[in-house]
């Protein structure tokens, strides 16, 4: 780490210099003003390589204040290496309180999941995004995709969904299912599972997306319509965990991980570690409320 004590104290609050923070904040305001639109930004150098969560880190460090309470998860877990290191870094550079408790946090940074527990109006959700361009799979040139967004020319994206249905009998997009934000832009919701996609719709929290390697920011403001792309007869659906339950809590209504033990036995466990802890301690955490989850209730 930093050997020289002189330099250790010379980092300013939240690491990034003020001018760059200002730039990122301005770009974030633009992103919120045009929901789902990808705003290019500076993506300054960080002590970690681009593509390892720098986008999320830029956003967090640009918006964090001394009174914020910070939580960070990686694939639902507070304890993974990426989450722990970034938590330590943010804590060292800002001195803010960190927490594992979803309810208590004011800023939650995430990689590839939305927390299972419902969010509230005082929270900001920050995503680390590897590929911000939803159209990249159908068009490889950036100038073309930008034009397609500008003209709302999304037929190619729709045809790719049609083709998946024709070839495989279903739309084969496990993570990063394309969504339409506020009836206008198609957006890649970072690779969150389909399970989490409905939770973006009409959410109480602000959702900010940072793609450090691709140098793009975008946002979903609170109470904004976010619809997964679906045909009139082929509907979007969330992951099906029928016949499985969390082996620690018996819960059947949460995103589950598949675990293999050394003896070859298979277990399912709730992916969101804080939600799991709360269930184990019988704290009754309140889950997101969406149409797809309610359907599971009705079936049960």
């Amino acid at each position, binding site marked *: 780490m930093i050997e020289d004590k002189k330099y250790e104290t010379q980092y300013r609050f939240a690491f990034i210099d003020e001018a760059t923070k200002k730039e990122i904040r301005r770009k974030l305001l633009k992103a919120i003003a045009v929901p789902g639109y990808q705003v290019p930004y500076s993506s300054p150098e960080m002590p970690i390589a681009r593509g390892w969560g720098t986008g999320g880190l830029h956003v967090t460090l640009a918006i964090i204040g001394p009174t914020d309470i910070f939580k960070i998860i990686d694939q639902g877990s507070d304890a993974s290496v990426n989450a722990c290191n970034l938590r330590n870094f943010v804590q060292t550079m800002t001195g803010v309180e960190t927490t594992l408790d979803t309810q208590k946090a004011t800023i939650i940074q995430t990689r590839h999941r939305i927390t299972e527990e419902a969010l509230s109006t005082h929270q900001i959700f920050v995503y680390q995004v590897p590929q911000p361009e939803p159209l990249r799979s159908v068009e490889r040139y950036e100038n073309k995709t930008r034009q397609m967004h500008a*003209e709302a020319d999304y*037929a190619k994206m729709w*045809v790719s969904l*049609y*083709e998946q*249905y024709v070839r495989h009998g279903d739309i084969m997009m496990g993570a990063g299912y394309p969504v339409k934000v506020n009836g206008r832009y198609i957006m890649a919701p970072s690779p969150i599972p389909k399970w989490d996609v409905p939770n973006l719709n009409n959410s109480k929290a602000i959702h900010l997306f940072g793609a450090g390697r691709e140098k793009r920011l975008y946002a979903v403001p609170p109470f904004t319509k976010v619809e997964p792309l679906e045909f*009139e007869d082929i509907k979007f659906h969330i992951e099906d965990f029928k016949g499985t339950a969390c082996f620690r809590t018996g819960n059947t209504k949460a995103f589950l991980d598949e675990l293999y033990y050394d003896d070859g036995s298979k277990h399912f466990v709730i992916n969101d570690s804080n939600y799991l802890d709360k269930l184990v301690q019988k704290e009754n955490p309140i889950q997101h409320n969406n149409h797809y989850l309610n359907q599971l209730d009705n079936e049960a």
Partner: protein
Amino acid sequence: MKHNSENWLLKVEGLTKIYGTANANSIAKTGPELDTNICPETGSIVACADINFELYPGEVLGIVGESGSGKSTIVKMLYFDLEQTSGTVLFNKAPYVGKNILEQTSRTKRQIRNHLMGMVYQNPRDGLNFKFTSGGNIAEKLIMAGNYHVGNIREKATDLLHKTEVPTLRLDDLPAHFSGGMQQRVQISKAISNQPPLLFLDEVTTGLDVSVQAKVLDLIRVLQQELGVAMIVVSHDLSVIRMLTDRTLVMKNGRIVEKGLTDQILQDPQHPYTQLLVSSIL
């Protein structure tokens, strides 16, 4: 339908495309009289200049001329593939009546293109996406026109393939695996899928063998009579023009040198170039 000067579908006025930097003399110093379309002063290329014509609903208009005479350039500008240097195109369809469609925003142009126009290119690779199935390619055009029901899309695509005599079993196959004639027929299915009032055919039979050519031409003629769609047919082949079109424009060096009823032009060509063209084929 009776054609008079009022009920045209498409009116083209002074359409010009120049590549490179032109000066005031570029148009005067090129053209069929001087047998060149390269401006001697600036080296700019006058692909077509001062093109005027009307197209009536349900009419088939031919554009004939040697390669490099500017035929395809006109059609590509009308379909917004190329940007014009100057000119006005009026399209007599609500809500575009009285507006120069070439001056609209690219989003409006896309709307016009998706809902009111169809294009069949000489090379199927220009009109089809070879990574998508033939059904997917037709679906693309239907989705562009606002159709989001997979069942309906597939039903319609099957119907179109049947109409264009592509085996419907190949709905979910890639056009890359099709023969040239079949690719061309898939392209035609795609172009007519949203029943546009205006269809552009750019050298559709060039590169196909004669029997397939005859089949494709026959198909186009049947479709034209069934759907009553107005067409602009670009070809260097006079037999294609004779078979398909009602009226013809003859082009040379980027200008229209003669226009009139197709039969009249073929029987009694007036311009020396048209005479040469007709005599070298008939």
